């Protein structure tokens, strides 16, 4: 029979063991992360489908990275970066251009250089911003998504205001970047000016948006839910949606399509950046390089019906003919967005 030593489990030894265990528990993630091939990527929630299907397996094979992606909104990604500025956990973030400007202002990004990311030299000139602070990796186009069971097309953005569509329209909140398309189109229709001038006619935009209220079922900040309502036929028109979301669903046989109305469509600014001081910096640069390389560019552009940024890639979405494609003054948007969000929320409130 074995006797337990009277010195086997004292209060002091128990405390000491607990302290070591607690220290080990807290230290383990940092120790593991320091030597891991893990990359945490912030991206849009609507990108989950192609991130999982294409990017994750490719990155494991090409650079040996284990990708953990956090799908949310650009503004939420910005908040995560700002909150963790002293100890960032995101390595790379994929978000929209106006939010990138705010991230640069807050000193949250590291420039992308051709030494670390050679594929950036193959991009269109307008896809590299602020001396490499971020690059556009693909560019979907945005128009008006509609349910094909209830509409045969959307020839004009005025359809959103048509009394025949009362209660059948959902638009994005200005909290979402795609919300800007409805605002700018309201500015064009309200002011009667061309886009280059109308984008600054914000008073006309809000006056025209107010006229839209009788037709609105809702304003969304979670796009997947609004899109679900479009698919179900609960609404007919979903303003400001983009090709990377609507066209893959159409290809799957869902009764939806994306219209390019005669007044014009918009270029959705999908950017990629390196987080300043983010973990695994070399691996992060390798990730960005792969995202801008031919293989990923072609795969994402095909899957997400988007225009590739890499000039050597010929695959991807076909941009509708005969309509203007607009890209707004994002610096103007970034400078005014807070006020617009407050004003929009109050205007649209029930």
């Amino acid at each position: 029979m074995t006797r337990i030593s009277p010195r086997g489990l004292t209060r002091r030894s128990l405390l000491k063991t607990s302290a070591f265990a607690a220290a080990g528990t807290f230290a383990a993630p940092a120790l593991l992360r320091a030597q891991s091939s893990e990359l945490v990527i912030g991206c849009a929630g609507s990108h989950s489908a192609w991130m999982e299907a294409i990017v994750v397996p490719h990155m494991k094979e090409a650079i040996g990275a284990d990708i953990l992606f956090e799908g949310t909104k650009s503004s939420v990604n910005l908040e995560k970066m700002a909150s963790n500025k002293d100890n960032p956990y995101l390595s790379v973030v994929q978000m929209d251009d106006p939010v990138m400007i705010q991230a640069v202002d807050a000193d949250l990004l590291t420039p992308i250089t051709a030494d670390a990311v050679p594929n950036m030299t193959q991009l269109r000139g307008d896809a590299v911003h602020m001396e490499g602070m971020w690059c556009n990796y693909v560019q979907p186009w945005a128009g008006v998504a509609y349910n094909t069971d209830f509409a045969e097309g959307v020839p004009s953005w005025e359809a959103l205001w048509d009394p025949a569509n009362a209660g059948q329209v959902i638009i994005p909140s200005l909290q979402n970047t795609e919300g800007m398309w409805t605002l700018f189109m309201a500015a064009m229709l309200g002011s009667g000016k061309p886009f280059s001038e109308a984008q600054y006619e914000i008073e006309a935009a809000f006056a025209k948006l107010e006229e839209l209220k009788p037709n609105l079922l809702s304003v969304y900040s979670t796009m997947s839910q609004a899109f679900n309502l479009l698919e179900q036929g609960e609404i007919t028109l979903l303003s400001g949606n983009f090709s990377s979301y609507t066209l893959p669903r159409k290809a799957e046989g869902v009764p939806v399509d994306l219209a390019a109305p005669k007044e014009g469509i918009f270029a959705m600014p999908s950017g990629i950046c390196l987080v300043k001081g983010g973990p695994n910096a070399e691996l992060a640069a390798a990730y960005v390089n792969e995202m801008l390389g031919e293989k990923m560019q072609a795969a994402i552009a095909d899957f997400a019906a988007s225009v590739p940024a890499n000039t050597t890639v010929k695959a991807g979405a076909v941009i509708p003919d005969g309509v203007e494609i607009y890209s707004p003054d994002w610096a103007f948007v970034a400078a005014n967005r807070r006020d617009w969000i407050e004003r929009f929320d109050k205007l649209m409130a029930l």
Partner: protein
Amino acid sequence: MSARIDRISLLAVPALGFLAVVYALPLVLLLAKSVQTPEGFSLAEYRAFFADEYNMRVLWRTLRVAALTTLLALVIAYPTAFAMSRARGGWLTVFLVAMVLPMSLGVVVKAFAWSILFRANGALNGALQWIGLIDRPMRMMFTEAALVVGAANVFLPFMVLPIYAVVRQLDQRLPEAAASLGATPMFRFFNVTLPLTLPGVVAGSAFTFSLAVSMYVIPSLIVGERQQTLSMLIARSFLYLRNEPLGSTISAVLLGIAVLVVVLSSWLARRLGART
């Protein structure tokens, strides 16, 4: 004896320490932001919040939705708690599982389930048309009624379980004694049963109201951005406006409401407890 009690009370120290670090400290830091300005202490954010008509509308809507949710949950929960108190064996297990299991289901999943129920060509509209109550589909999605029904569904267990705990301990001889003295069922309920179960009603209502007044996911999924609540304003302030003082101020207002509900319900429960 008292020394023994003191030593036992030390067992609460880890929990208190944990709460102090992960709850109280961040909360204090958050609330401090609502009164901090570069010039020093200021209540300007509070004045601005209460002076804004839109904020007052959101505050009123938040309170109204929370009150309606609590009322609906109470109407459903009260008879349910009595049924549970009478159930034995397998039936009691069924009741308890029915109460607890839905809590493990995510709100997002429930919201999509509600959209199947509430949409124009959904089950509810179909049933109402089939029985001839309506000719054409009613608008149910994105209404306050849908929000109240959805919220009551989520918070129902928090109303049922406190009432059930009180009803289970109810001395059944008291209503029987009233009956033997000639009291009608209605009189027995309003003068004997209801007063004795009020502490459970107060506790359940306080739980449900506190949760409903601060809910975020349910309104954002069911009614969207056009009908904002205080929690949605807080998220908007921090995430989109990047206005920490405003977000902290609204958080403090919301916390004040929750604390007021808890204090009032504790006071009411003590009074009712003393009376019964």
